Each structure stands twice: as structure tokens, then as C-alpha cells.
């Protein structure tokens, strides 16, 4: 197939080929055709992968002046979505990922629940500054993290399921009980599509894991020091 590109350049007066003519001749070479197809594929792939560059939004309130973070406590996550047990799914996954990829020791969920009962804090209630200090001291942690699932669902696509997850995390300094920073992150399974159905994330569990990793990476990028470093 012969393609011409009109760039509205005037022909040279000395009888040599003008720009349009040069382009036409070049495109007649079969090697260039293969190269252009390859180039097109590269552009599609890059375009597809560029969808995954969305970063968690991060709001800092205080600067953490402590040492590297080695221990945290997760408060019971609050479910603001209609997905049953969505808060527990995200909480368990986030706790596992904190330990797995960041090497952070997460205080036992049972210990957090015991203190919640003792301080008479309802599961859907956020503790006061004093209560966070008690939690932090008793569990011997540096940070206390609360979470709220604002959106979790599985949308039915064309022969695939598109999970959607949005989460807000609030991080408190366990010693002072004050908010250090908060993070909002939203992702859909289709955000990770490479080509056709390749790369799609099909389960909320897998999406929770990826979101958790992205948030933790973002925290480190924002200056949170990794344990032992």
C-alpha cells in the first residue's frame, strides 16, 4: 500500500525531489512497512501501560521525625461500600502486604480488638487522640493506620469482571496520636490492561493487593523510611 503524506512543503526549484516525493519513495520499501507496524505496536503497548501510571493522592499534615518504620497497628477498616466484608478483605490484604513487601511488623488484629473493647470504641468509630496514644503504647507501634473503603464492586464487563476499589487511609503518629498523612487511591481492574485481555485484574483480592503495594511504594517515595534502612 502506498501512503502519501502531504505536509504542504513547496517543491525545490532546482529539480531535486521535494519532501512529499521523498516520503513516498521511502514508504515503498517493504522494510519500512514492517518497521512502521512494529512502531505502531510499540505505541499501543506504551499507551496501554501508561494507563497504570495513576498514583495514590497523598496529603501530608505533619512530618514524621522518627526512625524508620518497623511496626504499625491497623485499626478496623470501615466499609463505606456495598461489597460485603470489603473492609476486612482490604484490611487483611494490606496487613499482609505491609509485612511482605515492606518488612513492617503489623500488630495483631486480636490485640487491637481487645483494646477497642476495653476502651469501648465501636468498630465503625474512630478512636480519639488519647485512645490512639493508648493503642500505640500498648501495642508498641510507631504508626497507627485507619482505613475506609469508599468504593468496592465488581462490574461485569464483556466476558470479564472489572473490579473497582477506592480506599482512604489515615496515618497517625502513635506517640502523639496526631494525623501524619492521609492517602486516597482508586483503581479499576481495567487500568492494568496491556493488550486485549492481557494484564486485566479480575478479582477484588488481586486489586486490593496491587493497590496496597502502590500505596506502600508511594509512602516510601514520600519519605517514609523502610525498617532497617
Amino acid at each position, binding site marked *: 500500500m502506498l501512503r502519501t503524506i502531504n505536509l504542504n512543503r513547496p517543491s525545490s526549484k532546482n529539480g531535486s525531489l521535494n519532501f512529499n516525493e521523498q516520503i513516498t519513495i521511502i514508504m515503498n520499501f517493504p522494510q519500512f512497512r514492517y518497521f512502521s507496524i512494529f512502531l505502531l505496536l510499540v505505541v499501543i503497548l506504551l499507551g496501554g501501560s501508561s494507563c497504570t501510571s495513576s498514583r495514590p493522592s497523598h496529603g501530608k499534615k505533619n512530618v514524621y521525625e522518627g526512625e524508620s518504620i518497623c511496626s504499625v497497628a491497623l485499626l478496623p477498616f470501615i466499609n463505606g461500600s456495598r461489597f*460485603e*466484608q470489603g473492609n*476486612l*478483605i482490604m484490611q*487483611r*490484604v494490606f*496487613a*499482609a*502486604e505491609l*509485612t*511482605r513487601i515492606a518488612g513492617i*511488623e*503489623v500488630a*495483631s*488484629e*486480636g*490485640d487491637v*480488638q*481487645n483494646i477497642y473493647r*476495653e476502651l469501648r470504641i465501636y468498630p465503625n468509630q474512630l478512636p480519639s487522640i*488519647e485512645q490512639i*496514644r*493508648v493503642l*500505640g*503504647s*500498648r501495642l*508498641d507501634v510507631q504508626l497507627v493506620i485507619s482505613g475506609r473503603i469508599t468504593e468496592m464492586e*465488581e462490574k*461485569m464487563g464483556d*466476558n*470479564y*469482571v472489572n473490579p473497582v476499589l477506592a480506599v482512604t487511609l489515615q496515618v497517625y503518629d502513635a506517640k502523639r496520636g496526631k494525623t501524619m498523612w492521609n492517602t486516597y487511591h482508586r483503581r479499576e481492574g481495567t487500568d492494568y490492561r496491556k493488550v486485549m*485481555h492481557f494484564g*486485566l485484574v*479480575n*478479582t*477484588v*483480592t*488481586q*486489586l*486490593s*493487593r496491587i493497590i496496597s503495594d502502590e500505596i506502600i511504594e508511594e509512602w516510601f517515595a514520600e519519605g517514609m523510611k523502610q525498617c532497617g534502612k
Partner: protein
Amino acid sequence: MKRFLIITLLTMTTLIASYAQAVTVAVFPVEDLSEGRNGVNFTLTEFLQQNLQEKGIEVIPTDKVISFMSRNRIRWLGFLGTSHIYQVRDDLGADFILFGTVSQRQELPLAAFGMVLTLVRACDARTVWTEVGGMSKADISNFFAIDEPESLDDLFPVLAQQLLSSWPAVLEVTGQNPGIVVETSRLSSQHVKPGDEVSCSVKIRTPAGGETISQVLLRIGEDNYLDMVEVSPNSYAVFWSAPDHEGLLPVSLVLRCQSGRALVFFVGNYQIDTHSPKLNLKVAGKNVNNFMAFNGRLPITPVWLDPEPLSHWSLFIQNMGGQVMAGTENKGSLPQRFVWNGQRPDGHKAEDGIYEIVLTVWDRANNSTVSTKKVFLKSTPPIPVINAAVGNDSLIVTLDSEDEIPVDYWSAEILYSDGEVLLQSQGTDLPVDVLIPFPSPSDTRQLEAVVCMKDVLGNKAQKKIDNLMQLVNVEDDQPEPPKQQEWVPEF
């Protein structure tokens, strides 16, 4: 020689590997969130147990684990508190505990399965391995759909195997020294008056192999230390009197160990409150003779001078004899507004008169304040007084009210008996004279009067006089009282 070396090396490697995995694991029943908060998946629990046994790991039987759970009243799956983790080590002899949570397990719209596995070392309650995974039927697409999963049953072994593939090659049974656990701490009460008794009780667990406590102290404020008394094994308590000065005092538990180390746990703050709550009462009535008067519905608004949280409050409305007409009390903060509808407890209207509103509030330290306000209830209509007199060229009708409550509005209509209106008048002040021109002498129709009044509280009255001229001649028409003709004995 070379063969001997290889065999020796292989034997040593196998021995090291088998020693590395010579651990005991308690696999707790897998929590299944797809079945709700209390869901349990025994199929997956057995699958995990078998898989670990195949790795040469000793697994504690399920019935022993369940028996442990019932003994220790463990109601939730997927995690344990630190004390229970130490208990698992002591009671079941487990080196590690494997917790599993099925995050999702569904056939529709597409078969999907998700899982979280966590391995906790029992000696120091630390997480040593964890893995998360989710898999859908759409994730596995093979050439010509060969060996693709058909349902959920095909998915979960694939995912579980995938997760367990990263199981640590070597599991270190010994970790850090187990830490001292403060199982419970209670500070009571957190809001006190000067001199009130404050108490703190704690329950501590010192795991085997951990540090030994030599002294249990309570630090109040910056540098005031109290020795805590062991009231029962591992339970300590102390009582003290709150100081006289107002302020917030932090309370921390200090555990001095035999090693010389001191562990500090923040227990909470307690507030010494020397001031009573400050508030007034505002009622929405009409100010009549320095009393707030109302005619049946009285909005009462507490107005804070210095707002503070309350523990409880009560509001009563009583008459001057001390009889309670209405009342309510509750815990927590005050409502923004109360409304008394002027009724007695039996639902009937309360009589006109003076009533007292008594609002008592107690703050969290039990300091109380009483606010009172007297109000005047007047729900009966005004009583119109109508007099008539003959003037020079007109009839003078004098209107007045018997009540002390001022009139907001009055109107008078003078009309003939056949309905023809002779005069209409209205105003806001009483008493007032209304002048009516004399009708012509030939007119034989009677004069009627309709008088309406509304007082400032909204009570309305209407009075009709059928024959106005009767009021003029009232003295003439009245029969003279009969004269006493004889003496009557008085009893």
C-alpha cells in the same frame, strides 16, 4: 571417592533441610469471608494441613485446635491476640500458627477465588511469612482452552499451591524474646472532682522465656509514682485521691524488669474538674409584669455560658406547691430545646398560674448546676367587659378586659337585628369608648353587638350582646331587692 563425597553432601543437605522444617504448625480453621463474618472453610483447612504435612511439617490435629479455641473462648477466625498466641505455644506445643482467610469465593459472574495466608511464630508472636492472591477463571486462558478451570473447585487448589510455593525454605523457631503483654488496663474514673477516688487496675502476662518483672508502678503526672498492689496473680491495682488543683494528668504503667529495663505503657489521662457547668434557661414567652407568660406551648432552650460535655441531666416543671407537672431526664448531652405543651402528667391542661422550670445538669466529674426559671401559664381566653351609657347625641359603649394580660387586638361590630351593620371598630388598647349614633326614633329594630378580643399570648374570646340597649337600662330594669319583713334566726 567422588561418589562418596556427593552422597555425603546430599545426605547432609537433606538432614539440614529436614531439620529446618522440623517444626510444628497449628493450622487454625480458615476464615471464609464469602460466608459472612463467621464463615469457616474446613475443606481448605484440611487442604493446607495436608500440603504442610507433605512438606514434612508436623501439623497439630484440627480437633485439638478447635478444643483450644473453645477453651479460650476464641470467637473470631483469621487472627489471635498475642496472649492467645503464647497460649497456643504453651498448650499445643506449636512453633508456628498458620492463619488463612478466604477473601472471596464465588462461582458467578465468573468463578473467582481469593486468599490471604499468614504464618505467625508462636514464641514472639511475629509474622514470619504472608502471601496474598486472587484468581479468576478469566486469569487462566490456555491454548484451545485445554486444562482451563471450569469451576471454583478447580481454582482454589491452583491458587493455594501458588501461594504455598513461596513458603520459606527455613523456618527459624526461635525469634526475639517474647514481650510482656499488658492484657487489660482500666483507669477509673477519667473525670473527677478534687478529692475523689481514682483507681487503676492492670492485668499483665509475662510469657515463659521473657523478662521477669521486679516492680509494678503507676506514674501519675510527670514524677509521681505509686506502687501497684498484686490483687490476684498477674493483676495489679492502686487507688488514690485526686489532687485539689484543676488539670489533666497522664497516667502510665511502669514495669521495672530484673534486667534493669523499664517498660512504660500509657494508660490514659484523667481530668480534675473543679468547676460546675455554667448555663442559663431561655424560654420563648411574652414578658408580662416581669414574668415570661405563655398560653400552652412553651419552648425552653438551655443556653451554655461555657459548654462542656455532660454525664446526665434532668428537667422538671413544677407548680408553686412543688407538684411536678412534667419532667424528663437522660444521660449524655442536653437536647437543644425542650417544649412543654402546658399539660399535666395525666394529659389534661394545667391550670393557669405560675410554674417553675428546674434544669439540673451534671458534668463528667459529677459537678452539678441547677438553673431555674418561673413562667406564667394563661391558657384561658380574655373576659370581655362591655358597658353602655347614653351620651349627648350617641350611645357610649365601653370595652375592657377583666384579665391582667394585655390585649393584642379587639374588634367590635354593632348591627341591627336583621343583620344591617351600623358600625365597625377595632383597635389594640383597652379600655376604649365606642360612640354609636342614636338610631332614628322610628326604628324599632334591636341593636346587637359582637365583640372579639385576643390577648398578647394568643388566647381569643368572642362575646355577643343581643340587645345593646338592655345594657343602658340595666339599672332601671333590675328589680329592687325584697325588703326583709321579719327577723330570721341565724344558724
